[in-house]
């Protein structure tokens, strides 16, 4: 179970390889988020990710701990980049290993949903019309709230 917050890129194949190598793992679900470019005047030229050092790592570790409490997980890896990124660049990786695919898929989506609404990262986009902070999406709050139902 490990968390990295870093400026540099990561090696998706190596990360998933480490998860498939965990003893007993039969299923590895993973997610990669990428900077979208877009078209025309709204096209994103670059994106800068600001974060709250210290709290970032703490909140991601807490999210993983919650996932481990809900599903029988054999491995969890979270990587989030910070700093300036260009369209097509990888932003985030979440990988989860479990014996069976149901737990792996659910836990991976849970970690992403919680990361999106609880981990202190903020995106600022640069377009032809200037720089602007990205607004939080209500759909992300709704996605995270799904996991609280029936508790």
């Amino acid at each position, binding site marked *: 179970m490990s968390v990295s917050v870093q400026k540099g890129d990561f090696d998706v194949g190596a990360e998933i390889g480490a998860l498939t190598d965990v003893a007993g793992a039969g299923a590895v679900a993973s997610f990669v988020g990428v900077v979208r470019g877009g078209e025309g005047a709204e096209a994103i030229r670059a994106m800068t990710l600001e974060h709250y050092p210290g*709290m970032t790592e703490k909140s991601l570790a807490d999210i993983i701990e919650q996932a481990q409490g809900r599903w029988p997980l054999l491995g969890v890896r979270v990587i989030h980049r910070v700093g300036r990124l260009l369209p097509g660049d990888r932003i985030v990786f979440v990988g989860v290993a479990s014996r069976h695919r149901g737990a792996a898929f659910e836990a991976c989506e849970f970690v992403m949903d919680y990361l999106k609404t609880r981990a202190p990262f903020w995106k600022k986009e640069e377009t032809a019309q200037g720089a602007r*902070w990205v607004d*939080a*999406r209500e759909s992300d709050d709704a996605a995270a709230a799904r996991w609280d139902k029936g508790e």
Partner: protein
Amino acid sequence: MNVTVLFFASLREALGVERERIALEAGATVDSLRALLIARGEQWQPLSRGSVRAAVNQSLVTGANMLADGDEVAFFPPVTGG
């Protein structure tokens, strides 16, 4: 008592402040600290937005959270990572 206050992202830019040491009376909460800052004047109004989140010692908290000497308090807009 003294606390360190941090501001992030659009809130940091709107306030023009990144961090500050502030002396508080005993019994202060996140809400009372926030009210004290907003009362300073026009520059501090962005802190009154309903969407502003708070963390104490790097954990998300509600406004009623009591503060202690040496606490690190952070105010920021809704997060947009991932």
